[in-house]
């Protein structure tokens, strides 16, 4: 913070590099403008437009916000197309010229003539390089094959005319082997790609070359090269300019990216769209605006489609999760059914084991203690298996069995097994006794914990008192009192009575239902503990 307590925000645009970029682009464009006269009427139209094209291409590349894409009008858009074609061809010619050493003019004619025959510049230049190497390393071999090496007035090799001689030698023989040897010797292993050129006779090639409209001089190629470099520099410098403006505005750069991408999309597809609309570059700005708007809508629709695809992916994921949940539920049901099946198998196995034990018992005549034990064990196992089977089936049905129900099933199973035995069989008697024991466990038990006072003398020191109906021993706490008690009765100290929470005429009923007393003694104890908190005098 400044000493004057000021807040400052700076907006800056560093145009120094931009100036240089524009300056160079301006100069190179002016130089290239002259070269464009070779484009004939189109080139004339472009007079004075090239410099604008230079900036428009930059504006398209960097995606100026707002009307930047078509800011410079229809003529410029058309000019840019023509210029880009000119520049691309110049690139190819320059590349061919460098590789083959041919002059710019000769390279111009050959590249365009070969293109007419379907041989690209890259293939042609590679082939010509091989030919020049063959001329240098194996001239005799070429001459033996009938290929005359042409030379110009200076005594240097004329590759163009030598190529024509190769074509003539190739066409002069119908022997496939010799033809292949010529191709291999002249152009190497990739020579087959040059065959379309060899198929054309000399006059045809000469005619094609003579028809070439755009012939570049060395100076033309240099101008194109300078123009390309200047355009790249202008592009970079404009990017620097935008970055300098954006330094303080960084949070909004991300928002601009989308509009930038949209602008680039529009500029790249503008020509196609114009063709679809039947418009030409010579029509007015309205046609181009219409085309660019259509492209913008297409771009935005594709972005929407992307978000819809994302939404669809999410909904598909949800559907997949739901399907997974359903599959899990099915698996669970399957496991439960499987468990029930296993329980059935276990029951059947227990029955088989019982039969085996019975057979062993009968064989031994019931005299062997071990067989007796195994038989009794087998009966119990059958009953256990019956309970397990019932449990598994209940689980498969989504229910559970209570302890009482399990006990009933257990007893019933044993009862059925006992009934199948001979009434006089000692085994049946043993089994029945076991069943009777099980039946002796009450399914419902009510325990009344209560107290009643019995009227009578408090009990003298010499006498004894009877408490066959229960009651509290009268007299001071802790004072000994003789009493008559009977077998099965319980005597409690005052402390134990407190625990039972019994005092002063209150009756508390503790009802045990089912086999709870047998199966859940801990629960009974907890209930008794709770009862000590019930109201009453302590």
């Amino acid at each position, binding site marked *: *913070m400044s000493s*004057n*307590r*000021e*807040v*400052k*925000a*700076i*907006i*800056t*645009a*560093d*145009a120094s590099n*931009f*100036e240089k970029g*524009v*300056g160079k682009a*301006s100069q190179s*464009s*002016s130089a290239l403008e002259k070269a464009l006269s070779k484009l004939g009427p189109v080139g004339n139209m472009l007079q*004075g437009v*090239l*410099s*604008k094209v*230079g*900036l*428009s291409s930059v*504006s398209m590349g960097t995606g*100026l*916000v*707002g*009307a*930047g894409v078509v*800011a*410079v009008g229809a003529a410029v858009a058309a000019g840019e197309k023509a210029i880009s074609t000119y520049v691309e061809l110049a690139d190819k010619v320059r590349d061919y010229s460098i590789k083959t050493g041919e002059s710019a003019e000769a390279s111009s004619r050959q590249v365009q003539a070969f293109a007419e025959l379907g041989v690209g510049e890259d293939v042609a230049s590679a082939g010509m390089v091989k030919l020049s190497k063959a001329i240098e390393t194996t001239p005799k071999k070429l001459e033996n094959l009938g290929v005359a090496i042409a030379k110009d007035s200076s005594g240097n090799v004329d590759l163009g005319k030598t190529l024509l001689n190769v074509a003539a030698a190739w066409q002069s023989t119908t022997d496939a082997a010799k033809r292949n040897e010529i191709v291999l010797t002249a152009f190497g292993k990739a020579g087959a790609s040059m065959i379309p050129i060899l198929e054309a006779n000399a006059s045809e090639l000469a005619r094609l070359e003579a028809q070439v409209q755009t012939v570049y001089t060395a100076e033309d190629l240099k101008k194109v090269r300078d123009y390309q470099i200047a355009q790249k520099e202008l592009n970079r410098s*404009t990017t620097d*300019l935008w970055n300098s*403006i*954006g330094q*303080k*505005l960084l*949070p*909004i750069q991300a*928002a*601009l990216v989308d509009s930038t991408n949209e602008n680039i999309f529009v500029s790249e597809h503008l020509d196609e769209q114009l063709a679809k609309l039947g418009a030409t570059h010579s029509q007015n700005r309205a046609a181009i605006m219409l085309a660019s708007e259509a492209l913008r809508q297409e771009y935005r629709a594709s972005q929407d489609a992307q978000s819809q695809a994302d939404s669809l992916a999410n909904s598909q994921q949800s559907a997949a999760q739901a399907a997974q949940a359903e599959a899990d539920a099915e698996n669970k049901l399957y496991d439960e059914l499987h468990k029930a099946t296993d329980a059935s198998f276990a029951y059947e196995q227990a029955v088989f084991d019982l039969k085996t034990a019975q057979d062993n018992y009968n064989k031994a005549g019931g005299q062997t203690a071990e067989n007796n034990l195994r038989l009794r064990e087998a009966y119990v196992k059958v009953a256990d298996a019956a309970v397990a089977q019932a449990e598994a089936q209940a689980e498969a049905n989504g229910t559970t069995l209570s302890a009482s129900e399990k006990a009933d099933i257990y007893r019933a199973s044993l009862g059925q097994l006992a009934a199948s035995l001979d009434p006089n069989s000692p085994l049946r008697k043993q089994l029945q006794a076991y069943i009777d024991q099980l039946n002796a466990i009450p399914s419902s038990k009510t325990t009344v914990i209560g107290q009643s006072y019995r009227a009578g003398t408090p009990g003298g020191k010499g006498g004894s008192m009877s408490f066959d109906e229960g009651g509290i021993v009268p007299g001071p706490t802790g004072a000994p009192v003789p009493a008559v008690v009977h077998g099965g009765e319980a005597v409690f100290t005052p402390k134990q009575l407190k625990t039972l929470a019994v005092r002063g005429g209150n009756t508390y009923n503790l009802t045990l239902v089912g086999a709870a007393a047998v199966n859940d003694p801990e629960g009974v104890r907890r209930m008794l503990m709770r009862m000590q908190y019930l109201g009453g005098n302590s």
Partner: protein
Amino acid sequence: MSKNAPRELNAAGLRAGKIVQAEAKHLAPKGTHEGGGAVVPIEQSIHLTQSTKKNTVTIIAGGKSTPHAAPLEFGGSIPRRGFKGINRRGKRTARLLGGGGVLTHVKAHPYIFPAIRNKAEAVMAEYVKALEALASKFGR
């Protein structure tokens, strides 16, 4: 053309600065809590300066008569009457001692940087116009 380039961009910068200035004035806190007497309200203190050499436009708020401009933008504290000369260490000590009676704590209520954010597109559009104007003059 190279001589025209910075002039066009400088003009664009000035227009952009005025846009941001107007927005900052709109967002600036207003009211009697700004103080009375010799205190200049923040809205009136927002002004522009331009450096054509550096191609910069600066939006400034605050000053001697508007000491609350910076604390309101960023949050902070203002010394109360009688503690005008308090420095940073003094402020720290006052805060440790509870600050009662020495500092008035100010909650941030930014206006300049939100103005830039709100008007960023408009700023960029001004530069676009400048470049389009340059493009139309290119080659003349």
